[in-house]
């Protein structure tokens, strides 16, 4: 009897999977054009949210809080943290990595809330895109109400294993921000014999608003 019950349960489970399979298959079977449209929609929504934060949140704290929530929802911060550490990502302890992750998240929030703080009259026009494997690059430009020259912005999205999209990097006027961070962090680590504590200390200084004089052994 127990065997029959088990068999019934397994069969039911298997049938359930079969019933769900078409939905999953549909997600995976999206055409390239449909995937690109989804990626473009992701960027449009994300850009609208960012503009909304800039226009509605007038205080620095409010903007930081808005960007914090936006990044948590839209970006894969784990991937960004590993990338920005470069080759050092595999060399540090889990504990140090978690500390680094938390500091990096906070630094990004503060830096971009500040860097974008001067913009409040803009709108983002999402354009075309291109993809390779799981990577999608979506082009857009920021247009300003005051007639200022539009700024090109490219968004690097990664399609996650569950089919959703996440933000990995943003390119402003030809400069990928995460890559710039990685170059900067790698330089600090290289010039300080790979000492992660030195890098963490400099990031803390940035978060607290102080200037960092990172190179000590260069």
């Amino acid at each position, binding site marked *: 009897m127990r065997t029959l019950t088990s068999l019934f349960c397994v069969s039911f489970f298997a049938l359930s999977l079969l019933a769900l399979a078409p939905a999953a298959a549909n997600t995976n079977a999206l055409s390239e054009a449909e995937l690109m449209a989804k990626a473009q929609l992701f960027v449009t929504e994300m850009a609208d949210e960012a503009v909304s934060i800039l226009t509605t949140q007038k205080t620095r704290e409010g903007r930081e809080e808005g960007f914090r929530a936006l990044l948590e929802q839209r970006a894969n911060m784990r991937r960004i943290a590993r990338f920005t550490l470069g080759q050092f990502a595999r060399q540090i302890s889990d504990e140090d990595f978690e500390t680094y992750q938390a500091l990096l998240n906070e630094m990004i929030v503060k830096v971009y809330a500040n860097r974008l703080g001067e913009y409040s009259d803009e709108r983002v026009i999402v354009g075309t895109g291109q993809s*390779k494997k799981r990577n999608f*690059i979506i082009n857009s430009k920021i247009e300003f109400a005051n007639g200022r020259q539009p700024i090109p912005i490219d968004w690097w999205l990664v399609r996650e294993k569950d089919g959703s999209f996440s933000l990995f990097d943003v390119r*402003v006027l030809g400069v990928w921000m995460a*890559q710039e961070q990685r170059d900067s962090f790698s*330089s600090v680590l290289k010039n300080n014999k790979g000492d992660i504590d030195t890098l963490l200390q400099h990031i803390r200084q940035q978060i607290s608003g102080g200037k*960092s004089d990172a190179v000590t052994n*260069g």
Partner: protein
Amino acid sequence: MFLFRKRFQILPIVLSLTLTACGGAAPNEASQYQDANDPYENFNRKMFTFNMTLDEYALEPVAKGYLYVPEPVRMSVRRFIDNLTSPVTLANDVLQGEWSRAGTTGARLGINTTLGLFGFFDPATSLGFASHDEDFGQTLAVYGVSEGPYLYLPILGPAPPRDLFGTTVDTVFNPVTYILDDGLSGPVLVFAVAGIDSRATNVGIIDEIERSSVDYYASVRSLYRQNRQSEIDNGKTNLDALPDIGDLDDF
């Protein structure tokens, strides 16, 4: 003589290179993003410090003063210089075989010199001929010449060998070279005005990037190279040149 180059006019003494118009050279291979290719780093950092000091005590104060000039006037000066030096872009459009872009540059030159009153106005953009820049460093890159080691010079800022050589060649194409008898005063004047204008335009952004960078020198190096690559690719994204991030999910 390196002052003649349009890139250095946009991107003068110190770090207008951030979010404006950087120069330099860029890594094409993903792995190179982890390779600073900066064998003269100690020398370069000293020059960087020198330029920072120069910026703090000379360029930035002058640039902030220049901001009192009304924006329409500053814009007209910017356009005049761009138009005056556009033969550099035209020559390099042709050398790269970019005939459509060469046509655009030629049309801009003709329209803005006449209807635009010697370039002080820019009716060409409204007529569908958008501005772009080219220089001989980019031309060399298109023909496969790599940037060489990173080099940072006093006054000029980032100037790796390929682009330094390109700047020299561009002087031949630049009408500013031939304006005055000594061949130097004109370019120096244009360089100075364009540099001050660029620094003034980007004063807030540059301060913010300096403030938020853990290693300003390395940030500038990265910004410079990435932007340069973007210029070489004419703003297009080369997916094959992006770093491989596939292994970031594996640990």
